[in-house]
């Protein structure tokens, strides 16, 4: 005898009733407004995704604790891009079309953000970057630009580190040692521009790979070409290989770097000489009494010391980006993309952790942070500290 399915009519009716209830539930005013996040949540850069998530969560706690936005609470929906541009684009599409997020926040990787930018401009949904620094992300040439950023920008960073080498060390002929990827290229353009502006020449542009062990040949070329200082652009592990190679050569030279070294245990990897690398940050915790640090510790008990939140930059940028988005949605009085974009140009008096934002965006400059917001810093005993002049 065949076994009958154990569905009873009553169970079926109950199920149908429940389903119809779900379907009929009106989009009530209490339904949360969704913010999307597409960032690297796994793989080598997972720590960056974690920092961004923490920044957003802290901001959401603050906003929702104060009654939310437009009388509704804000909710975060995250997707992992695995640092892969294709996966990032698919995730962005899914968040916009299926989850109907009011705005999207991005991650660490410039190539991923570059893949998402054209789609967001087409879909007319604001996209805010709290990390990736590639210049063309915000300067993307779109007529109606929906891409904003609360982070460093390569072109501004290059200008700032050039100024730093010139004024602090009297550099006349800096050499470039850059990672061989689009991020390195973006900075090659920015640094060349910054040097040309000053009528200076470089001592050479050398590239190296993420997994290169020995960078001595490249550095020896720069040295023989008369480099009196170095620009360094790479993530934490490859930056450490540059420092180790310099150590081995016995070449003590001023180094101004993009923020790559901040992404991990730089001085453990590079040795004591890692402290000689001076790099930019948009934000630093200078003492454990900072209210945002206290909030972090309370929410994430695994954070014990300041050394556990390197880099603080990602947390602070994401925190401020979320506050700015919330302010824009409130100002727009709507969750429609074009209205939020218009409101982004009008927000004022938003008290972030990096600074208070008064009219941070204009259609000509969609970056909230500029060179004046950068802090030069270095590692001292495993912690990132601001450089004292």
């Amino acid at each position, binding site marked *: 005898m065949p076994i009958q399915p154990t569905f009873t009519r009553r169970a079926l009716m109950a199920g149908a009733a429940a389903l119809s209830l779900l379907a009929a539930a009106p989009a009530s005013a209490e339904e949360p407004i969704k913010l999307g996040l597409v960032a690297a949540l796994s793989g080598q850069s997972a720590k960056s995704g974690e920092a961004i998530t923490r920044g957003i969560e802290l901001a959401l706690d603050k906003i929702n604790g104060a009654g939310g936005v437009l009388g509704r609470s804000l909710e975060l929906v995250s997707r992992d891009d695995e640092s892969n541009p294709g996966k990032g684009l698919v995730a962005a599409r899914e968040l916009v079309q299926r989850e109907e997020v009011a705005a999207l926040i991005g991650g660490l990787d410039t190539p991923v953000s570059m893949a998402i930018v054209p789609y967001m401009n087409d879909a007319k949904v604001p996209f805010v970057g709290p990390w990736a620094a590639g210049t063309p992300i915000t300067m993307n040439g779109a007529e109606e630009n929906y891409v904003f950023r609360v982070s460093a920008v390569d072109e501004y960073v290059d200008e700032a580190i050039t100024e730093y080498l010139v004024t602090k060390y009297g550099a006349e002929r800096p050499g470039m040692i850059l990672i061989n990827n689009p991020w390195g290229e973006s900075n090659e353009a920015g640094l060349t521009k910054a040097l040309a502006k000053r009528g200076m020449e470089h001592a050479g542009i050398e*590239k190296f790979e993420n997994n290169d062990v020995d960078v001595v040949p490249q550095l020896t070329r720069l040295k023989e070409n008369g480099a009196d200082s170095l620009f360094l652009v790479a993530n*934490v592990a490859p930056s450490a290989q540059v420092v180790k190679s310099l150590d*081995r050569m*016995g070449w003590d030279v001023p180094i101004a770097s993009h923020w790559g070294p901040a992404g991990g245990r730089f001085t453990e990897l590079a*040795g004591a000489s890692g402290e000689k690398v001076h790099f930019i940050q948009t934000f630093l915790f200078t003492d454990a009494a900072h209210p945002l640090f206290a909030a972090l510790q309370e929410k994430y008990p695994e954070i014990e010391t300041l050394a556990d939140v390197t880099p603080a930059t990602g947390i602070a940028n994401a925190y401020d980006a979320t506050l700015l988005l919330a302010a824009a949605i409130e100002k727009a009085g709507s969750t429609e993309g074009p209205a939020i974009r218009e409101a982004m140009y009008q927000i004022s008096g938003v008290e972030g952790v990096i600074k208070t934002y008064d009219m941070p965006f204009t259609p000509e400059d969609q970056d909230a942070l500029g060179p004046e917001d950068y802090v030069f810093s270095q590692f001292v005993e495993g912690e990132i500290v601001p450089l004292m002049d």
Partner: protein
Amino acid sequence: MTLLFAALLTGLGLGAMYGLIALGFQITHSVCSRVNFAQGSMVMLGSVLGYVLTQRAGLPVILAYPLALLGCAAMGVIVEFCLIRPFAIRGNDGWLMATVAGGILLDNAVLFTFGNEPRSLPSPLVETSWQILGTGVYPQQVLIPLVAIAVAFALQMLFRRTRQGRALLAVVQNPEAARLMGINTTVMISGSFALSSMLAGAAGLLIAPLFSVHSDMGTLFGIKAFAVAILGGMTSAWGVMIAGFLYGLVEALVTTFLGSSYTYIVVFALLIAVLAIKPSGLFGAAKLRKV
């Protein structure tokens, strides 16, 4: 002069690394005509085990490093048993993809357990560098070629002078006859993979202090070492070792004199050119085809 000397130092150090890893390809290829494409991951495993045993478990190096090498050997046995043998007994070439997949699997397993942050394995041999002719060299960099040459020499002795080595050679020459003569070919093949992974692990322990320990540190080494093994001809340990030094030197010289943008273009173009002229590699004996 400084440029040339710096290039030679870099080339010899890295070349010895490539050679050491490539020896692992050569050994298993000689014994059973198959290789472990996860060889790069074995380099990583050696470093990671070395790091975990010394830095986290606090074992002394003299105990930790042999244990790390044993771990690599065990992994080599597992790779052969799970990823190669099931395909080999059916005469199927699936092991090619299976070992590649195994490497990716291992890298990701380490990523989840060891963590995604690169760590540093300290060594007293990288604390100060010796300054010579306007550049510097770490004692560790001198150690790598010494170990590599010693290993190549030891392998040669193993194959020529010991009972087990001769048994391995017998398996190479005629597996069927070897089996009939009472040589356990299964154990021999398994042993060759253990030895091969151990060499990669040793390379990992040697390079780690000059590099950083992370889950994908071995990938590029694995690819370059395979190129070296092919270049060396896969038949003699010395051939592979010399090919390793050649590869390292050419790589460093091209980077130094033409610039880093040209390194891969020139090195791999040269590799293709050499293989076009000498298909069995620089030092490989051309295989006799019996008709």
